[in-house]
C-alpha cells in the first residue's frame, strides 16, 4: 500500500505544539497543586447535608448526585477501598473515563485539585478535598475469581458483582460498567511497570470530597482492593455523605489549576448552556 508521507515541516510543527502542551502539563500543574487535606476531616454543616449513608463492608450503593452537590467518602473504621463509577444522568452513555482522566492530566496519580473526566471531554467530578492522594485508576476491583484465589473457602462479596447489581438496578446492564476508580487504594507502579501496594500512604480516617460538575448517577462498591495485603476478608463500613457544596469561587482550585481543567470546564459550560 502506497502512502504519501507528511512533510518534515508539518511534522516538526505538530511536534513543537505537542511539546509545548507537554511542558505545561508536566511542569506547571504539580507545582500549582496543594498538599493533601489535613486530618481530621472538618464537620459538614448539618443544614448542607442531603443524605448520609453507611455502606457496610462488602456492599454497594448508588445515588443521584446533582451538579453543585458533593459527596464525602469517609473511611469510618480504618482502611477500606471504595470503588466508584459514574454516569451522566441525562445520557448514561457518557460515563467516567479514567484513561482520559489520566492521559489529559499527564498523571495517573489523582488528588486534591485534580478533576475526573467523562468520555466526552467534560468534567464529572472535582476532587475538592483529599487527605491521602492514594487512589488507583489502573487495576480495577475484585471479582468472584480474584476473591476465590485470595480468600479460599470463604464466602465473600466482590466489586464486579456489586457494580452489576448497582448498574442493573439503575436500568443499565453489564455493558455499561466503566473502568473503576478505587479510592483509598495506595497503588503505585515500579519503574518496570509492576504494581505495588504502599500501605503507609493511606491512613485511618482518610477522606475524599468530590464535587459533581454535572447531574450524575454514582455507584459505589465497598470491597477490599485485589492488592490489599490483608488475606482475611474483613471489609469495614464506609460513610458517604451527600451534601450541598459551596458555590465555586472564580479562582476555584479545581477549575483553574491546569489548562486542561479549564478547557474541560469550557466543554461543560457548552453542555449546560
Amino acid at each position, binding site marked *: *500500500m*502506497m*502512502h504519501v*508521507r*507528511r512533510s518534515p515541516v*508539518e*511534522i516538526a510543527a*505538530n*511536534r513543537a*505544539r*505537542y511539546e509545548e*502542551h507537554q511542558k505545561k502539563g*508536566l511542569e506547571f500543574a504539580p507545582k500549582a497543586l496543594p498538599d493533601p487535606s489535613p486530618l481530621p476531616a472538618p464537620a459538614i454543616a448539618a443544614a448542607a447535608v442531603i443524605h448520609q449513608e453507611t455502606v457496610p463492608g462488602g456492599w454497594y450503593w448508588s445515588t443521584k448526585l446533582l451538579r453543585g452537590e458533593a459527596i464525602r467518602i469517609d473511611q469510618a473504621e480504618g482502611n477500606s477501598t471504595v470503588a466508584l463509577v459514574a454516569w451522566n444522568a441525562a445520557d*448514561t*452513555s457518557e*460515563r467516567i*473515563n479514567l*484513561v*482520559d482522566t*489520566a*492521559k*489529559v492530566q*499527564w*498523571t*495517573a*496519580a489523582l488528588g486534591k485539585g485534580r478533576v475526573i*473526566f467523562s*468520555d*466526552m*471531554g*467534560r468534567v464529572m467530578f472535582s476532587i475538592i478535598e483529599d487527605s491521602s492522594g492514594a487512589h488507583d485508576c*489502573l*487495576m*480495577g476491583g475484585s*471479582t*468472584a*475469581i*480474584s476473591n476465590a484465589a485470595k480468600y479460599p473457602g470463604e464466602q465473600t462479596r466482590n466489586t*464486579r458483582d456489586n457494580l452489576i447489581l448497582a448498574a442493573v438496578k439503575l436500568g443499565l*446492564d*453489564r*455493558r*455499561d*460498567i*466503566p*473502568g*473503576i476508580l478505587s479510592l483509598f487504594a495506595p497503588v*503505585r*507502579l*515500579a*519503574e*518496570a*511497570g*509492576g*504494581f505495588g501496594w504502599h500501605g503507609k500512604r493511606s491512613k485511618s480516617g482518610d477522606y475524599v470530597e468530590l464535587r459533581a460538575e454535572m447531574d450524575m448517577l454514582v455507584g459505589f462498591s465497598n470491597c477490599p482492593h*485485589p492488592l490489599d495485603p490483608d488475606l482475611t476478608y474483613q471489609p469495614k463500613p464506609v460513610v458517604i455523605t451527600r451534601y450541598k457544596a459551596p458555590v465555586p469561587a472564580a479562582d476555584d482550585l479545581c477549575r483553574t489549576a491546569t489548562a*486542561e481543567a479549564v*478547557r474541560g470546564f*469550557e*466543554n461543560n459550560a457548552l453542555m449546560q448552556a
Partner: protein
Amino acid sequence: MSDFIQTSPARSVESAVQDPFIAAEAPWSGIVRKGQTIRIEDSYGQQAIDTLFYRADDFSERYSNQDTMRMQGSAYVGIGTKIMSNEGNVMLTMTADSCGRHDTSAGACSCESNTVRFGHGTKYLHACRDNFVLEVSKHGMSKRDIVPNINFFMNVPIKPNGEMTIVDGISAPGDYVELVAQMDVLCIISNCPQINNPCNGFDPTPIRVLIWDGED
C-alpha cells in the same frame, strides 16, 4: 512499506486466511476464531494501533484493560500477556512481539478529549473514537460498548509518582505482535489518526493484519 518477518514455517503471507491492509487513519474489524493467530503489523513504524476485542457470540463480554493489568500485576502489554475480558476469561494470549512496548492505560484519542488536551482548535480532526463508533456500529453496538482499549506500539511510560506521558514510539517498520485467540473474538481496530502527539510520529501510516488458522 516493510518486508514480512516470518515467525513460523506455517505462517507466511501466502498461508494467511485474511491479510487486510488498513489505510492510514482508517478503522477495520474482523473475526478471529479460537485457535487462530492474528498478527498486527506496524508496516511503517511508530504507528499506534488502537484495538478492542469482543466475544464473537456475546458482545457484552469484551476486553477489559483493568482486568488485564490486574491479572498480570503490571501495566504494560507484552509477550505472555493474557488479554482478559470483563468476565475474567482469557480472550487471547500474546505469543510474539518484536517491539516490546504497548500501552493499555491511555485509551483512545477522541475529538472531545483532544479539545481538552490540545485546545478547542483540534476538535475537528479525525480521531480513534470516531473510528471505533463507526466500526462497532456495523456490529449493532454503540458508544456505550466502547471501553478502554489496547494501544499496540504506543509508548506511554508511567513513573512511580504517577506521571504519565505519551512519548515517541519505538516500533520500527515491520514490527509486529501476534496473539492466539482463546475464544472466537471480534477484533476492532482504529489505525490511529492522531497528529497532536508522538504516538504516530506525527505522520499516521498504513498497517497490515494477517490471520492464520491454528497449526494443530
